[in-house]
């Protein structure tokens, strides 16, 4: 859920919604991401780091202090909850990159990503599970609503909240494997399985991304980072690359759309995300959700006033917003793009969506 005008609400609302979807998860992973929660340090990167041993915790702390400017370091506040057991050490650091790391022309985001990847890769038992500005991810093994209580999310206020309850099948249920997966301000939650994981991962590795979290979902976050942040594609166009329209749709499109969509498929074939999925991305400028190319997973969207909702089930929306202004089921591959006030492009739909609509 996202409030376009950045009106904040506490984590209570989203916890109520995700609790209704209890049976879609099995208690082996739950998590949240919230935007706008750190107004006191909005320009610092908030690193949420889990450490499975004192050694890992100490090494992480050393790394952060050595390579970054630390404004504030503290344990992440939690409260004991019977549904959330054996937590690792959970710390957060509000940091900025060192100026020496930022020579002329260097991209601050690239520098931060490199630090995150280095910690994840080189410090055994330590994982950065959140690294954005004025946002945070909170996740654990447990049911989502219990995880929310454990992290005291009722005490945070944010304008965009996303939540996920996990039912892991392909990869172990561990704290780092719960959703959302994040990379700087990207947070991604995912229902499904990425059958093209093998090639997506190899493609990303070619651009220096390191897939370390033992799960297929993280490639989603990295792919979007690559396409939108690094390659500068509009969000809707990125969705056309990740959940590309079928050739038969492209072949019937007007000439200029054909050219664009064909180019996307030619160039981003290895980034095509195949297999069943419904996915929601949160980011500092808004929120976007879309399905796989043949909609093998449920996804419903709704609007009420300035609030945009996207969920697996309509019931989860009506639980917190009983009579929305509009409820709809987005078509396969068709992105639902929500921009916060003053952000984003005004254009309506992705090229592929327009084609699908015009040829339907």
């Amino acid at each position, binding site marked *: 859920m996202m409030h376009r005008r950045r009106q904040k609400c506490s984590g209570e609302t989203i916890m109520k919604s995700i609790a209704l979807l209890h049976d879609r998860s099995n208690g082996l992973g739950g998590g949240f991401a919230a935007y706008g929660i750190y107004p006191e340090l909005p320009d610092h990167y908030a690193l949420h780091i889990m450490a499975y041993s004192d050694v890992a915790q100490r090494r992480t702390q050393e790394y952060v202090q050595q390579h970054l400017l630390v404004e504030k370091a503290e344990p992440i506040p939690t409260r004991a909850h019977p549904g959330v057991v054996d937590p690792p050490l959970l710390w957060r650091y509000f940091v900025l990159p060192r100026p020496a790391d930022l020579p002329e022309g260097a991209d601050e985001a690239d520098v931060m990503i490199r630090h995150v990847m280095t910690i994840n890769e080189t410090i055994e038992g330590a994982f950065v599970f959140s690294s954005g500005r004025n946002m945070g991810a909170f996740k654990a093994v447990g049911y989502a609503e219990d995880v929310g209580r454990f992290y005291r999310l009722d005490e945070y206020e944010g304008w965009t909240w996303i939540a996920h309850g996990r039912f892991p099948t392909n990869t172990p249920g561990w704290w780092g494997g719960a959703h959302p997966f994040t990379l700087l301000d990207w947070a991604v939650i995912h229902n499904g399985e990425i*059958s093209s994981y093998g*090639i997506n991962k190899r493609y990303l590795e070619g651009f220096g991304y390191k897939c370390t979290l033992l799960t297929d979902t993280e490639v989603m976050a990295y792919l979007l980072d690559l396409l939108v942040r690094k390659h500068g594609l509009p969000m809707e166009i990125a969705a056309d690359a990740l959940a590309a329209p079928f050739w038969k749709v492209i072949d019937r499109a007007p000439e200029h759309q054909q050219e664009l969509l064909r180019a996307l498929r030619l160039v981003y074939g290895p980034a095509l995300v195949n297999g069943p999925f419904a996915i929601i991305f949160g980011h500092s400028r808004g929120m976007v959700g879309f399905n796989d190319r043949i909609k*093998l997973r449920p996804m419903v969207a709704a609007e009420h006033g300035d609030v945009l909702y996207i969920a697996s089930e309509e019931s989860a929306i009506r639980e917190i917003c009983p009579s929305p202004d509009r409820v709809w089921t987005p078509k396969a591959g068709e992105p639902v793009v929500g921009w916060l006030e003053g952000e984003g492009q*005004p254009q309506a739909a992705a090229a592929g969506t327009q084609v699908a609509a015009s040829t339907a």
Partner: protein
Amino acid sequence: MATNKVPRDFKVVVDHEICRRCQRCVRGCGFDALVFEGRVKEHPTNQCVACGYCMAVCPEAAIAVTENPMAYRHHGAWTPALRRSTLKQALTGGVLLTGMGNELDYEMVFDHLLLDACQVTNPSIDPLREPMELRTYLGRKPDQVEVEQDEKGQPRLKTDIPPQVKLETPITFAPMSYGSISLNAQKSLALAAKECGIMWATGEGGLHQDLYEYADRACVQVASGRFGVHSEYLKRAAAIEIKIGQGAKPGIGGHLPGEKVPLQVSEARMVPIGTDCLSPAPHHDIYSIEDLRQLIYALKEAVDYSKPVGVKIAAVHNVAAIASGIVRAGADILYLDGFRGGTGAAPTIIRDHVGIPIELAIAAVDDRLREEGIRNHCSLIAAGSIRSSADLAKIIALGADAVAIGTAALIAMGCHVCQRCYTGNCSWGITTQRPELTRRLDPMVRAEMVANLVRAWTEELKEILGALGVNAVESLRGSRERLRAVGLTKETMDVLGVKQAGV
């Protein structure tokens, strides 16, 4: 002298009770291995090669070709093949020739790889009910797409996309020259390529005028002999290929004997009738990578950068580094031919002992190009023993964009793999220029059989993708996660980038 005869490999057995003495077998044998003297008999010296044509034309099923069981007494080390070649060399003092691909029992890596399938968590897809996309574009791709807004605020493509060849399924026909195969055989491939929306290839034999109408689906070759290369040849083609090497004979040139150069072949190749066509082992204007670059760009210039220019090499030990150089030299398509690749004629010793398997070569090249960030810069065609749609799926998972099939396509049009292509006597009318043999091959009929093979593999590949739960071939391409190995060494699995089954 009778004592110096090379024992026959095969025996022709005729059931004279049911033979009606029509002599179709005698007339049909391209090798003159049969004679009629009141009844069908084996020729006293000409040997049967087991091409199977006599059996195919016998109306009474009265003739059978069998292996000659006691041609050579058993010996574990000195196999019949070794003794045969030793004896032949003792008699001739020459290099022994052969046709088709490597016939020795090297480990077949393909047969140790298994594909994945979906169960429960990701639904498999039924290709008969859902879209299943195999379309493949061969050619250089940019690293990223740039978009700009038009005056209406609509997104438009800003990036230039280099020329591509569109394939409806990731299969092409391997280059086989007019000369090495008959015009009817080449026409069958051209017709099938048009029918299936794929690409055929001229090989180094020029383009006969009868095939001009199929040139827009042809990859025309520029090889070391430069036979048949002229401006129109280049301009009519879908793509251009510089042939450096061939899997069956890496480092070896070609030699089309003058006997196989009648008028029409001479016209297509632009040489006098009856001239031996010698393709040198190296291109004599390419002695290093920078020379290759010049030729690539000379050809691009010649066609105004309107079509992809590829390079074909044999898979040899250092293939990954060579491939990287070729891509950096400007090749848009890289054709890798494994050590099992076929040939019309090659020294047996080279065919059977030089080069490396295509599975390992593709894996190594795909890895290397990715490491260097240039995988998008060229398409990879894999060839050299792609025997079924399973091999096709596996090599795509290892990193190929498409495959080229030669032997499989020839088998589809009648070839019985007798390996005597170099003699020019092919009873099936494929690798011969003798008019009485070539006229047997009806291009319309044989094209349909070849097209059927492509269609069958295409359908099977769709089934495989559906089972894998993906609906576009690009989601299998290079996705080695969908392969597992059984019975391979750790080292082989490392090269392939494939895990052990069960892991």
